[in-house]
């Protein structure tokens, strides 16, 4: 069976005043219908850039490599350039939700009007139908007084409610793929738990594919089926969520797990990953993680090794240097 989404060998570069930035390098992954792929990584690791590539939302200074492919429903999204084609991936087959819900709503237009407009663009329905679809969706995400909220502006809603309204708008067009970029990062844990449960229910109900981006491994453990761990633009490890969290192989994944304060083990010391995340302008050659890796050996070959994922357990992929370097990094 072919995947709903397949990203192959994607590089994303930006031309800036200070030079060319490699934001994403040679990443590949796939998402099936009804599956949640979690992408986890620290700030600047290229999570948002990856998601935006799928909707072609990166700005004008972006360049993709010639041999990259983003196959959605058997079409290469990277070859899209007509308005008609782009419509398919922006609010049609793909919807995106963000950390900051105000990014989804125009401040001066009522929530309902925006939902209706979006539906009229993407669905073959009339205004009345669009209105009832929107109100039903607002109800579905747990918004009380949906008819009243329909006629309000986004800024009039509380934080948690706005998040729900954004999810309702993203889902009303019934996308096949939902891109969720840190949708719970700005929320309190209690509201985060509500939103996570809501997203999980909806995925089950509509059987869509989801890319869930977060820097929080706990959130990943709660929502994802598969996980890709990103660092400085590279996927260093990927696989089933249980494998990655319980049997991590790459020094970066292990370091992230150790740095996390575990509420069930208060005696464990807090162990940071040493050093700082390098600027993308000083992206290390060879292994991207070597400037912070405890196994790094300056005389070793990790500065020259080509990064490449290999399969160490069924579906569990790790960067080859990640397992070699323990011995000869």
């Amino acid at each position: 069976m072919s995947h709903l989404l397949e990203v192959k060998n994607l590089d994303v570069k930006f031309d800036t005043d200070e030079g060319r930035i490699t934001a994403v390098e040679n990443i590949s992954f796939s998402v099936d219908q009804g599956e949640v792929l979690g992408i986890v990584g620290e700030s600047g690791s290229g999570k948002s850039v990856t998601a935006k590539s799928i909707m072609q939302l990166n700005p004008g200074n972006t360049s993709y490599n010639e041999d990259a492919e983003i196959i959605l429903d058997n079409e290469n999204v990277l070859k899209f350039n007509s308005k008609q084609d782009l419509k398919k991936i922006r609010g049609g087959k793909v919807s995106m939700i963000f950390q900051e819900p105000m990014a989804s709503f125009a401040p001066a237009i009522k929530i309902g009007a925006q939902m209706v407009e979006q539906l009229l663009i993407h669905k073959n329905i009339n205004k009345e139908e669009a209105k009832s679809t929107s109100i039903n969706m607002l109800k579905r995400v747990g918004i009380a007084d949906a008819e009243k909220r329909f006629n309000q502006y986004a800024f009039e809603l509380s934080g948690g409610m706005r998040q729900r309204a954004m999810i309702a708008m993203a889902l009303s067009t019934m996308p096949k793929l939902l891109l969720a970029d840190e949708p719970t990062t700005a929320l309190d844990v209690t509201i985060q738990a509500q939103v996570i449960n809501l997203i999980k229910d909806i995925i089950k109900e509509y059987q869509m594919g989801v890319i869930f981006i977060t820097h929080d491994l706990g959130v990943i453990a709660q929502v994802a089926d598969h996980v890709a761990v990103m660092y400085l633009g590279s996927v260093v490890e990927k696989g089933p969520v249980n494998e990655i969290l319980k049997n991590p192989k790459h020094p970066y994944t292990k370091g992230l797990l150790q740095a996390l304060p575990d509420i069930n083990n208060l005696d464990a010391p807090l162990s940071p990953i040493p050093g700082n995340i390098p600027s993308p302008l000083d992206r290390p050659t060879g292994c991207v993680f070597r400037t912070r890796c405890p196994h790094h050996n300056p005389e070793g070959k990790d500065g020259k090794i080509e990064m490449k994922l290999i399969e160490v357990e069924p579906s569990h992929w790790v960067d080859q240097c990640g397992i070699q370097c323990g011995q000869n990094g």
Partner: protein
Amino acid sequence: MGDNLISVNNVSVNFDYQENFISKKQKIHAVNNINIKIKKGSFFGLVGESGSGKTTLGRAILGANKISSGNVIFHDDERDYDLTNMNKQDLKEYRKKAQLIFQDPYAALSPRMTVRDIIAEPLEVMKITNSRQETDERVRDIAAKCRLNIEHLRRFPHAFSGGQRQRISIARALVSNPKFIVADESVAALDVSIQADILNLLKQLQVELNLTYLFISHDLSVVAHVCDVVAVMYLGHIVEMGPSRELFKNPKHSYTKALLSSIPSIDPEKRSEAIELKGEIPSALNPPPGCVFRTRCPNPGIDCKGGEIKMGLTEVEPGHWVDQCCAL
């Protein structure tokens, strides 16, 4: 008083609120009748959802917010300072002794200031040092303690990463040689791999410089790891307070329990054990009468519904305090 550095006695902070000039004046009940004692040398944690009043209480203790009723006493070695009753001289002295660590110093500071100037500013504003040389010495000294590279002092802030910025921010707060530090969401903006480093630094400085912290955070796992005492706030009230390990192992209040259960477990096999709280924290303009948590409490008792319950902490184990109505 002996081993307490701060006593907060029946403190409330209200803000006036008027939607527009014809509507009637209302009060925002940001902080309500709070009683806490912060021991010398403790790492006192304050947790709770957004809008629960953590920052307002922290600022009140720093003398940066007016206190509507009650008082805050700072017990210094030689004398007490009553924050509700200080003259100009007292206030000046208190400012040196109690400092805030900004979440991100560059959000507030001019990008044209060098790191040295950022750290030195409190010394100059409070006229603590008498010569540039003395200022430089203090800046270098504290920068080294905060593990900042001395070479970096000449640089401008924009080039630094989150972790380095936070160290600058800490150095700036500590340069006046304070005894008490309010750290308000000081690691919230940091990546996990860096966060642990800053937390370890705060711990180390505490010992080295005899500091007492009020550590405000919405992240319970972080608080559980670094704090020795924790107070849980909800809608302006402290609903539970106690030694950190006891509180996290044996939470009594419905809100604390719900909050703890909402932390996403790192174990994929333990999914959705969260006690789901309905709705959101109510507005501090109209807090519910009786128990403030009543509108979201997953299992209110029969007595709780009437709204006649009077809130107040009661001690259930040594040092472990719970709101009286929920303690039963």
